[in-house]
C-alpha cells in the first residue's frame, strides 16, 4: 500500500498550483516604485579593440537617465572565479579580469560594452542604438587547438590562451603510460562533447535597488544560489558588506546550472541603482540569452583504454581541451577538472588512470557548468570507448561492462582518481535494465524495423556521478574558494505549524513538496503543516544553493539535523508537561508519550507551551522552538545506473528516431518517487537533446551561428519516446542521515552515450562497418555523411 504522506509518498507538487495557473512571482514580475529600465550595448564582433565610445547622442535622447561605460566602474572589481586550479607544475591558473563593462577590448559577440538606463524599456532600446562605437576588429580565436598554438591572445596581459594544463593524478602518469605500452589491446577514440546553450524557460533578469535612507542594497535576480551571489558580488566586485546587501531569488524558471553563476548584469544593476538613485531593471531577451548565458560542455578529447586479453581494463589515458570562453565564469575552472577527472573510473575497476585537461580561452561566450557539469563529459568518453573496445575485441558490450564492474562486495571502493565510492550495486542496476528494456526482445524488434527499411540499433551504457556537492575540507584542498555545506532553520510556530528556511533553492526541483515530506515524517504530522522558505538572504541562514544534485543530500540533511534538535527540545518540554523523565519520552505520530504508560501530550500542546511558557521549565530551558543546523557532508554521494536506448536509422536520410529509452537508477533512498521520476524524465530529454539535436556553433570569426531556435534545436515532445524508468535498486548512501544520493542530473549524464552507442550499433549491424563514431549531435546530415564513407 503506497503511502500518501511523508517519506516515500508521491505527493503532488504543491508549487505547481501557482506555476500552472500563472501565479508564480518571477523576477520580471517584480516592479518597484520609480523603476528604470536598462539595455546593454553588446559587442557585435568576437574580438576588437575599443578606441572610443560616444554616448553623447544617446544621453540626449528622450527618457535617458544615464549611459554607463567601464569608466563608471573604476575601482570596482571584476566578476570572480570561485575555484582556483593549479597546473601540472603547481602554478595557479591564469585568471584574467572579467570587468562589468568591457575595458579596452571586447572578447566575444555579446560582451557588454555600455548600458543605457532610461525611463522606459523602449527608450533604453532606442538610445542603445545611438551609442556610437569605434572598435577595431581583431582576429578571433574560436578553435581551441589553434588558440593554444599561436592564435590571437584573448587577454593581452596574459602570456597565452592556455588557462591551465592540468594533470590528474600526475603521480599516476608513469604507471598509465607503462600499462598502455604493454597492453594486449588499446582502443583509442577521439571525440567532441558538443557545446550547449542552456535555454532555461525563464530568461535571466535582475533588478537593483538602493535605499539612501538605510544605505543598503537589494538585488532581485534569477539565481540558483542567492547567498553565493551576495558573497561574490558584495565582497569581490562592489565592496558592499553583506549586512548591507540583500539578494532575493524569487521563483526561478529553470536553471540547469546556468543560473549558478554571478553575471555582470547583476553587479551592473546593483551599482547603477545607487548611481541613478532609482531601481534599475534588466530582463534578458531570448536572443540575448543565447549569446550571454554561460554555455555548457565543449570538450575535445582523445581517450585511450588499455585491456588485457580477457577484456579487463588496465589503464585509461585522456587528453582533453576544454573551452573556457572569453572569461572565467564562476565555476568554469572546476568543471573539466574536479567534476570530470574524478569520474573517469566510472563504474569500473581500472587500476591506472591519468587525465590531462588543457583549459583554453577563446573569443566565445564563457562556458561553465550545465546539468551534469563535467560528469556527462567523463561518462560519454568512457562509455563510448568501452563500446568501441567491445566491438574491437568481439565481446558483448554488456558483458564487457559486467566483467569490469566494481562488485557489490568491494565497497567502499577507492578509485585511482581521488574519490572513494561508499556504496553501489552495478550488477543489480544492469540486471534491472535488461529486464525493463526487454533486451531479449531486441532481435524481433530489429526484424520489424528492417521490414520498414529502417536500421535498428541498441545502445547500452552505465554511469556514475559524484553528487551531494560537497565535502568542504576536500574541495578546499582542491582549490574551491567556498565551503559547500548547507543550512536550515526550522521554526515551529506556537500552534504547531512549521516554517523551514533552507539554503537550497528550488527552481523546478519540487523542494516545497519534498522537504515537508521529510519533516512531517520525522515528527508525525501532516505535510501541510510544514512550509518551505528559500531564496532570500534576509530570511534564510547563509547557504550555498542548488546545483550538483545536492539539495536533498546536503540541504535535506541540514533540515534533518535541525529537526532533530527541535525534537530533542520538544521532548524536554513534553517531559516537563507530563512530569516524566526526558529519557522515557517517545515521539510517534505527532504525539509524545511516556514509555510504558498511557500518558501523552500532542505536538500542538508542546509547541504552545514553548511560546506560552506558563507551565515550562524556564530554569533549564529557553522558551521558543526554533533551531538552526548546518550540514557538511563527509563524502560525495555516488548515484549510478544503467541505461539502454533503441534507435531506428533511416538509411535514405540519416534520420535517427529514438524508439525507446530505459533507465535503471540507484539513487539510494527516495523521498518522493513521482518527483524523482520527473527529474529523470527531464534529464533524459536534455541528454537526448544533446545527443540528437543541440549544437552551439560559431563561425571562424566568432559569430554565433546557432543564435535562435531557428538553428538551435531543442528537444520537443515528439523527439523523445515514453521512458521506462526504475529506481528500485537502492543502496542507501552510507554517510548522510536520509541515505539519499540525488537524482537531478542523472538523466542528462547517463543518456548521451546510450543514444550514440545505439546509432553506431544500428549502422554496424546494417553493414556500415566503417562507421565507428559520430560526434554529437547525431543529426541526419552527420549520420548520412558518415554512412557515405
Amino acid at each position, binding site marked *: 500500500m503506497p503511502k500518501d504522506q511523508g517519506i516515500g509518498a508521491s505527493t503532488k507538487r504543491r508549487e505547481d498550483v501557482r506555476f500552472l495557473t500563472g501565479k508564480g512571482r518571477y523576477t520580471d514580475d517584480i516592479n518597484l516604485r520609480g523603476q528604470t529600465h536598462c539595455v546593454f550595448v553588446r559587442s557585435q564582433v568576437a574580438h576588437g579593440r575599443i578606441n572610443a565610445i560616444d554616448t553623447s547622442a544617446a544621453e540626449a535622447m528622450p527618457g535617458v537617465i544615464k549611459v554607463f561605460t567601464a569608466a563608471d566602474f573604476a575601482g570596482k572589481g571584476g566578476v570572480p572565479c570561485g575555484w582556483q586550479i593549479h597546473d601540472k607544475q603547481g602554478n595557479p591558473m591564469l585568471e584574467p579580469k572579467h570587468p562589468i563593462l568591457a575595458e579596452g577590448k571586447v572578447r566575444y559577440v555579446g560582451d557588454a560594452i555600455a548600458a543605457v538606463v532610461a525611463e522606459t524599456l523602449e527608450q533604453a532600446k532606442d538610445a542603445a542604438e545611438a551609442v556610437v562605437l569605434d572598435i577595431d576588429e581583431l582576429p578571433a580565436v574560436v578553435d581551441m587547438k589553434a588558440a593554444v598554438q599561436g592564435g590571437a591572445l584573448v587577454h593581452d596581459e596574459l602570456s597565452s590562451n592556455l588557462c591551465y594544463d592540468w594533470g590528474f593524478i600526475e603521480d599516476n602518469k608513469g604507471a598509465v603510460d607503462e600499462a598502455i605500452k604493454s597492453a594486449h589491446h588499446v582502443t583509442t577514440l577521439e571525440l567532441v562533447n558538443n557545446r550547449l546553450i542552456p535555454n532555461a524557460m525563464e530568461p535571466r533578469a535582475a533588478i537593483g535597488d538602493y535605499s539612501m535612507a538605510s544605505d543598503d542594497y537589494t538585488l532581485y535576480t534569477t539565481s540558483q544560489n542567492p547567498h553565493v551571489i551576495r558573497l561574490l558580488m558584495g565582497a569581490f566586485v562592489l565592496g558592499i558588506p553583506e549586512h548591507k546587501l540583500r539578494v532575493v531569488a524569487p521563483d526561478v524558471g529553470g536553471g540547469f546550472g546556468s543560473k549558478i553563476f554571478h553575471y555582470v548584469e547583476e553587479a551592473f544593476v546593483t551599482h547603477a541603482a545607487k548611481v541613478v538613485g532609482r531601481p534599475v531593471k534588466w530582463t534578458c531577451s531570448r536572443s540575448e540569452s543565447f549569446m550571454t548565458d554561460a554555455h555548457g560542455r565543449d570538450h575535445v578529447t582523445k581517450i585511450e583504454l588499455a585491456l588485457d586479453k580477457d577484456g579487463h581494463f588496465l589503464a585509461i589515458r585522456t587528453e582533453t581541451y576544454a573551452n573556457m570562453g572569453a572569461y572565467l565564469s564562476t565555476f568554469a575552472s572546476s568543471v573539466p577538472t574536479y567534476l570530470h577527472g574524478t569520474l573517469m573510473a566510472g563504474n569500473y575497476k581500472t587500476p591506472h588512470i591519468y587525465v590531462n585537461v588543457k583549459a583554453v580561452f577563446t573569443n566565445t561566450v564563457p562556458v561553465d557548468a550545465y546539468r551534469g557539469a563535467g560528469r556527462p563529459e567523463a561518462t560519454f568518453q568512457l562509455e563510448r570507448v568501452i563500446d568501441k573496445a567491445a566491438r574491437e575485441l568481439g565481446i558483448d558490450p554488456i558483458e564487457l561492462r559486467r566483467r569490469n564492474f566494481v562488485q557489490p562486495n568491494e565497497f567502499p571502493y577507492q578509485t585511482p582518481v581521488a574519490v572513494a565510492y561508499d556504496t553501489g550495486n552495478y550488477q543489480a542496476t544492469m540486471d534491472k535494465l535488461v529486464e525493463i528494456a526487454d533486451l531479449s526482445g531486441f532481435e524481433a524488434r530489429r526484424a520489424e524495423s528492417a521490414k520498414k527499411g529502417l536500421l535498428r540499433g541498441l545502445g547500452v551504457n552505465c554511469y556514475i556521478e559524484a553528487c551531494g556537492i560537497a565535502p568542504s575540507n576536500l574541495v578546499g584542498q582542491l582549490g574551491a574558494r567556498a565551503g559547500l555545506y548547507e543550512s536550515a532553520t526550522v521554526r515551529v510556530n506556537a500552534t504547531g505549524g512549521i516554517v523551514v528556511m533552507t539554503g537550497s533553492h528550488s527552481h523546478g526541483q519540487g523542494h516545497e513538496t519534498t522537504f515537508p515530506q521529510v519533516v512531517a515524517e520525522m515528527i508525525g504530522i501532516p505535510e501541510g503543516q510544514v512550509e518551505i522558505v528559500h531564496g532570500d538572504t534576509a530570511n534564510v541562514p547563509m547557504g550555498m544553493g542548488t546545483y550538483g544534485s545536492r539539495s536533498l543530500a546536503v540541504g535535506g540533511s541540514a533540515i534533518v539535523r535541525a529537526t532533530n534538535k527541535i525534537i530533542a527540545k520538544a521532548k524536554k518540554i513534553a517531559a516537563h508537561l507530563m512530569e516524566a523523565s526526558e529519557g522515557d519520552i517517545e515521539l510517534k505520530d505527532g504525539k509524545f508519550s511516556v514509555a510504558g504508560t498511557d500518558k501523552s501530550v500532542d505536538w500542538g500542546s508542546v509547541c504552545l507551551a514553548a511560546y506560552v511558557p506558563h507551565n515550562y521549565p524556564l530554569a533549564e530551558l529557553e522558551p521558543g522552538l526554533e533551531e538552526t543546523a548546518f550540514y557538511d557532508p563527509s563524502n560525495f554521494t555516488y548515484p549510478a545506473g544503467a541505461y539502454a536506448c533503441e534507435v531506428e536509422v533511416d538509411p535514405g536520410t540519416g534520420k535517427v528516431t529514438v524508439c525507446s529509452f530505459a533507465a535503471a537508477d540507484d539513487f539510494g533512498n527516495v523521498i518522493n518517487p513521482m518527483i524523482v521520476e520527473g527529474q529523470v524524465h527531464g534529464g533524459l530529454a536534455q541528454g537526448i537533446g544533446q545527443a540528437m539535436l543541440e549544437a552551439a556553433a560559431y563561425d571562424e570569426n566568432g559569430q554565433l551561428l546557432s543564435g535562435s*531556435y531557428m538553428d538551435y534545436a531543442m528537444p520537443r515532445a515528439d523527439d523523445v519516446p515514453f521512458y521506462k524508468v526504475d529506481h528500485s535498486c537502492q543502496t542507501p548512501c552510507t554517510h548522510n542521515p536520509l541515505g539519499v544520493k540525488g537524482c537531478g542530473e542523472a538523466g542528462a549524464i547517463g543518456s548521451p552515450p546510450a543514444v550514440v552507442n545505439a546509432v553506431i550499433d544500428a549502422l554496424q549491424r546494417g553493414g556500415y562497418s566503417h562507421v565507428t563514431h559520430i560526434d554529437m549531435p547525431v543529426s541526419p546530415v552527420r549520420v548520412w555523411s558518415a554512412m557515405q564513407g
Partner: protein
Amino acid sequence: MYEFDFEKPATVAEAVAALGREDAMALGGGQTLIPSMKQRLAAPSALVSLTGIAEMRGVCTGDDAALCVGGATTHAAVAAEAAGRYPALAALAGNIGDPAVRNRGTIGGSLANNDPAADYPAAVLGSGATIVTNNRSIAADDFFEGLFTTALEPGEIIVEVRFPIPERAAYAKFQQPASRFALTGVFVAKTANGVRVAVTGASESGVFRWGEAEAALSADFSADAIAGLSVPADGMVSDLHGTPAYRANLVKVMTQRAVSAA
C-alpha cells in the same frame, strides 16, 4: 519594435490605396514580419492588414474547376477546407509550423515572402497554380524569382491562388531539426499533361522544378523510375543542418517518397 501605424481595410481597393504610403507593408499572418519587427530588423511606417478583406478569405471552386484559395486564408483553413478536393495541398498546409502558426499564417503572406524553405512555394509551383493579384494573373513558373524575391510589384497584393486539381499528388518534407521548416521538401503532381516536381528548401536559388525527374515520372510514375537519376550538389544550400551533397540526396529521396505517397 519601432512605432508604426496600423490599418485594417475591408476591401482590396482600400488596401492598395493604403499601401501607396511610403514604407507601408502588407501584413498577412505576420509570421515572419512581426518577429522581424520585434527584433528591430524591419521598420515599416504602416502595416496594412489584409485579413479583414472578406473576399480574400476562404476556399472555393472556380468556373474552371480549379481550387481557389483566398490570399488571406490561413493554413489551418486550407488544411480543413481543401481536404476533400485537394488532399495533398491540405496535408501540406496542415503540417506547416505549429497550430499557432497555422491559425495566423496565410497563403498569400507565405508566397509573397518566398522563404526558400517554406512549404507553399513547392505546392504552388508543383501544382502549376496561378497567382491572382489585384491587377493581373501570374503563372507559378513566372512568380518565384529566387530567395525572398517574387514577381510582385511594390504594393501588389495576392488576392487569390488558383490550383488546378491533379490526378495524384503528394508532398514529402524532410524537416530541419530546429526550425522544422523544410530542409528539403518535394511536391509531386501528376496531371493529364504530365508530371510536375517542385523542390523547396534545397537550392540557393529557392524553389525549383526538377525537369529530369518530371520527364522520367511522366513516362513511368513510380519511385523506381528516378532511381538512376541524381541532382548535382552545385548550387545547393550549405548550412549547419545540411551539406550540398546531403541536400542533393534529399531531393531524390524525398521525390521518391512523394511519388510513393501520391
